[in-house]
């Protein structure tokens, strides 16, 4: 099997079918032993919900909920990739996307960031420390 040019791929997902289009490329680029695909979902930081002068939901409750939902989404997505023989790790973070993506890239020593144009761009392309693979609105061929 040909070796992949990338050892650690970071895929940013947003929970939509459109965002999942990036996965076909991740699957393709991860072909080969030793490659790992890291799936990341970033949930925005919550602010406590207040109603009628009382705090109705606290930040940690909201964030736990968002984290759980993201994990529930990522679980099956990762399982499908693993069925295709890809090594997958999932990550859910809460906070500002730009900061988090940069931090995760460092933490994982990722060598490429993969995303679809529909996913909110966490940082301007020219500010990314690693190559960024993006599929735009005119790209058709993704399974």
């Amino acid at each position: 099997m040909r070796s992949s040019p990338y050892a650690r791929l970071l895929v940013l997902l947003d929970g939509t079918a459109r965002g999942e289009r990036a996965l076909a490329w991740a699957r393709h680029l991860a072909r080969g032993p030793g490659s790992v695909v890291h799936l990341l979902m970033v949930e925005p930081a919550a602010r406590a919900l207040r109603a009628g002068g009382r705090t109705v939901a606290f930040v940690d409750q909201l964030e736990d909920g968002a984290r759980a939902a993201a994990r529930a989404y990522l679980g099956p997505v990762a399982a499908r990739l693993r069925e295709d023989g890809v090594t997958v790790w999932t990550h859910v973070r809460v906070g500002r996307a730009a900061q988090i993506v940069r931090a995760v890239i460092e933490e994982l020593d990722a060598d490429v960031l993969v995303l679809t144009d529909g996913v909110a761009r966490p940082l301007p392309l020219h500010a990314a420390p690693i190559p960024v693979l993006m599929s735009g609105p005119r790209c058709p061929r993704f399974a």
Partner: protein
Amino acid sequence: MRVAERMRPGPPALDAGESLGHAGRLLARHRLGALPVVRRHALIGLLDAADLDRAHPSAATSLAIGEIAGRLDRVRVERVLRPDLAAVGRRTPLVDAIRLMRARHLAALPVVEGERLIGLLTEDDLLVLLAQLLDEPPAP
């Protein structure tokens, strides 16, 4: 993408011994174009809305409107079931499933594990996927 990702798990199904009247009501209740037909949990066929149309009394029937429902309630589904059956597995690539549905003009495609019905891939769900994939990202 594979069938498992867009199918409806645990779909409604018709027992082979049910009536055409019941079939029509079930199709309408679930807003489906076709329903899988099972006999003791094994998939034996697919009943299409078109099969019901063909069984329906003609425009020149002498049956009174009130009698038609009764007649359809006395005909078993297995009598109008077509002999050919198409089904796919959960890991079938979605493109192959679509090809099959288009070739056989199927409004829904049963998904099986062995003989057991485990899901239904419907045209409506595929149209939803199409709209999702085509939708422009929201304006900033």
